[in-house]
Structures are given as C-alpha cells and as structure tokens.
C-alpha cells in the first residue's frame, strides 16, 4: 500500500528507518545489517585521524548508491565544536546536512538544547540542512523549527540506553505541534520500541545501538525494518479506541444453547 515518502528538507526517502554505523563487531556485520534494515540513510561520526593505528575507511563499507550518509556532531559539548564538526563533514565530501548533536552531560548524554540551537542558527545560515537531536520538549522543538530546522529529533530515552519511549505523551505533543518531520532518535532497544514511536505518528526512527549490540544484529535490523513499517501502517490505519469493557467479536445471536 502506498504511503507518502519521508521528506527532510530537499531530500526524499523510501524508508523511515535511519540506522547508525557505530559499535558493530566488524564492517561485514554492519553492511549486512544495513541491507537487512532497508534503511536509505546511515549516520556517521567525524573524528580526529588516529595516527598510531589508522582505521580502515568506513565509507568503503557503505553502499553509497543505496544509502545517503548523514554525518553527526556526536560528542560535541559546545555550539562551536558542533559547527566546526559540521563544516569538516561537508569538507569530507559528505552531503550538506547534519544530525546536530550537542551534549550537555557526560553520564546521561542528554542534549544541551541551548547550545544546539545556537549551532543550528549558524549552520542554517551557511546552507546546511539541520536535524537537531533534542530533548522530548515541545518548546525547543518549536524553537528549532522556527530557526529553520528541516526536522526535529526528540530522544525516546538516553542514547544507547535501550529504555524505549519513556514519555510517549511528550512525543505525541511534539508531533501535534510540528510542521517538520519528527524523528525519534535514541533509546530504541527492541522492535516494539520502534513500533510505539511510529504508532504515535513519528515520521521516522533513528537508531544504532539496538541493532549494533543485539546478539544477532542482522536479524535485529530486519526486525526494526518490519517494526517501523508496522508502526507506520498501524498509525495510518488508525487504532480503535481503548474501552474498559469487552465487545464481542463474534455474533451474539444464534449461539447453540
């Protein structure tokens, strides 16, 4: 059945799942997990070159014909660091969009919305398409949208925690108020978490650890693909209201007595 495509800024996607490239045991498993996920966007990070033990080039293991690369500013603690990281990403030849992330606390990895907004304003002026990672806060979601963000990405739960969607009401409120796509980013631990996000009406789900650190990442990637599709279909189909009492599914008349 047809669904409209996910549109973020000037880009369009068939899949509503965005998947990461971190924490995989090896590139082979990552590549197979990416394939199984059906995602057409993958996130990457930008880091200092390690001169002592140079890493193999990650980009050689991403099918760039099928998947678009979304650089992040993960690990940045100030707007300045995030701005510089985004510019370096563009310089690396990556598309000029960025998952903008400025962290405010080392233990929880909760975002610093104030610094993120500062960075967003600068980068939007420079022509970047900005997808800010934010708390599940409708006020900041609005501020990002007003600043020209192409999407907002509220967290379901802390990064890598796998706790699921801790505050569905906040996600729902953001969704009711947003005019740009809302992508639930972080906290998705298993398939049902992704489904819940999509059933709430989220436009997409971004996840990394839930797949990369699953016992079988390739199978989990497939599960996440189906979960996002199921959640989306259930949202479009429209769930029945919850009722306190039963309502028989079989005819009440004509029962053998």
């Amino acid at each position, binding site marked *: 059945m047809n669904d409209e495509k996910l549109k973020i800024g000037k880009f369009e996607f068939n899949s509503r799942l965005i998947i990461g490239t971190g924490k995989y045991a090896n590139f082979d498993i990552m590549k197979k997990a990416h394939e199984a996920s059906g995602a057409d966007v993958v996130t990457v990070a930008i880091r200092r070159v390690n001169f002592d033990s140079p890493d193999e*080039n990650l980009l050689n293991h991403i099918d760039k014909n099928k998947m678009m690369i979304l650089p992040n500013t993960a690990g940045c603690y100030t707007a300045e660091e995030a701005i510089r990281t985004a510019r370096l990403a563009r310089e*690396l030849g990556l598309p000029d969009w960025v998952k903008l992330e400025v962290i405010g606390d080392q233990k929880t990895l909760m975002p610093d919305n104030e610094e993120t907004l500062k960075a967003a304003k600068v980068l939007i002026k420079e022509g970047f398409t900005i997808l800010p990672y934010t708390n599940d806060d409708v006020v900041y979601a609005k501020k990002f949208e007003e600043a020209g963000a192409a999407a907002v990405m509220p967290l379901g739960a802390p990064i890598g925690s796998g706790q699921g969607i801790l505050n569905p009401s906040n996600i729902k409120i953001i969704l009711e108020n947003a005019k740009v796509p809302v992508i639930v980013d972080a906290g998705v631990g298993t398939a049902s978490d992704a489904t819940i996000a999509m059933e709430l009406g989220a436009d997409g789900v971004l996840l990394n650890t839930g797949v990369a650190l699953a016992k079988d990442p390739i199978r989990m990637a497939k599960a996440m693909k189906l979960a996002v599709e199921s959640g989306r279909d259930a949202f479009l189909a429209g769930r029945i209201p919850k009722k306190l009492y039963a309502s028989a599914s079989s005819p009440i008349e004509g029962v053998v007595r």
Partner: protein
Amino acid sequence: MKLIINGKEKEVECKRVSDLLDTLSLNKDAVAVELNKNIVHRENFDNTKLRDNNKLEIVTVVGGG
C-alpha cells in the same frame, strides 16, 4: 617546526598542508583539515603554508549513531 596536530605536539619539517599529509601518509581524499579553527579546502592543500605553532585538526569519517 612545531605543530599541534589533533591536540598533540609534533616536530615536522613541512612547508604546506599537502606536504604534511604526505609525511603522515594520509589519503588526502579521506581527510578534512582545519588550520587554527578555519577549514582548509581540499583545493588549497597545496598552497596553504604552515607556520610554527599552527594548530591543525585532521579528521575522517568513523562509525557513529
């Protein structure tokens, strides 16, 4: 000449950014370079001169979420 590359002091004799990348055996297409917090565009690697105490960031793409 002393350079601060990715936060570490390094003693090298390189006149330009491209020389430095060669000395470090880096693939120029796989890195991006910042000199004193300003981007050095790829096309300027050959003509950007290095000076004592310059601070450089040399970055690449790695796995992330």
